[in-house]
């Protein structure tokens, strides 16, 4: 239930953000149907809305999408999915489904994965449509403060991931790199440059857990 409310709210704000960024309602809905990864979708419309090129927008979406590859590796060890169903399972591989499947009691991982995946998919797409249609009718996005809703959404997504000191350092470094790059590079590029913030942490041997 809580998950459903969160997904609905998140989808509503994505639909509104996409339209605010200059996408059509159809484009917003196609993103939710086909791309189906919240953070990547937000990144794409965020970069496009800020005047960044399509290449920078796509690159940002793909970099944020890499974590789904690792989710899929974990899920593949838990769930025996073969043949064409693997295509469907791949599309449903996101934060929420991985979280539910990996925390489900033994034997129920499959049920948790498919039930979560299908309900989040339906809810996410309905909410996107509502958000996009709503924002398209509301009028001037800036007067309503909708442009401020997008960074707030990113902050809310980021917060649960920066509880540890090293992730907090990466977030701070990423923010600083982006701020430095804004006056120096074309729109869209600062976000990609911020990815360099992870390099020092990769060069160091893993700290003891």
């Amino acid at each position, binding site marked *: 239930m809580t998950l459903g*409310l*969160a997904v609905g*709210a998140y989808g*509503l*704000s994505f639909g509104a953000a996409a339209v605010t960024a200059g*996408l059509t309602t159809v*484009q917003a809905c*196609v*993103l939710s149907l*086909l*791309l189906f990864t919240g953070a990547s979708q937000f*990144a794409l419309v965020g970069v*496009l809305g800020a005047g960044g090129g399509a290449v920078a927008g*796509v690159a*940002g*979406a*793909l*970099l*944020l*999408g890499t*974590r*789904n590859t*690792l*989710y*899929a*590796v974990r899920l*593949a060890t838990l769930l025996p999915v073969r043949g064409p169903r*693997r295509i469907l399972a*791949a*599309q449903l591989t996101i934060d929420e489904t991985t979280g539910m499947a990996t925390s489900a009691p033994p034997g129920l991982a499959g049920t948790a994965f498919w039930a979560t995946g299908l309900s989040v998919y339906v809810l996410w797409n309905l909410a996107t449509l509502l958000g996009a249609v709503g924002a398209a009718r509301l009028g001037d996005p800036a007067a309503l*403060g909708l*442009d*401020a*809703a997008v*960074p*707030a959404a*990113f*902050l*809310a*997504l*980021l917060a649960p*991931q920066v509880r540890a000191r090293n992730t907090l350092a*990466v*977030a*701070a470094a*990423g*923010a600083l790199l*982006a*701020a430095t790059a*804004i*006056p120096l590079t*074309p*729109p869209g590029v*600062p976000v990609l*440059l911020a*990815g*360099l*913030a*992870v390099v020092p942490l*990769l060069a160091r041997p893993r700290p003891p857990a």
Partner: protein
Amino acid sequence: MIWTAVLVASLGCFLLKLAGWSVPARWLERDRLQRAAVLLPVALLAALVVVQTFAADRALVLDARAAGLAVAAALVLLRAPFLLVVVAAAATAALVRAW
């Protein structure tokens, strides 16, 4: 151009998901790769917060969006639900602009 970005990003992100289901697990079990995939979203999301709040084309600016973000940050620290954070940020920016 937007359509191209929409379709290419969708295909790319789907292939990233499918790759994880299809390649042998040991290919992706390298420690650095794992950490990169966890840390990259953190760096990118932080950068997106900054860009979406303080960038106006290629200039750094302080406007109503910053007020919205400040309210959002306070609510995030109080562990407020997602929708409240987003709506409060928008309402704050709208109020500052209407002033």
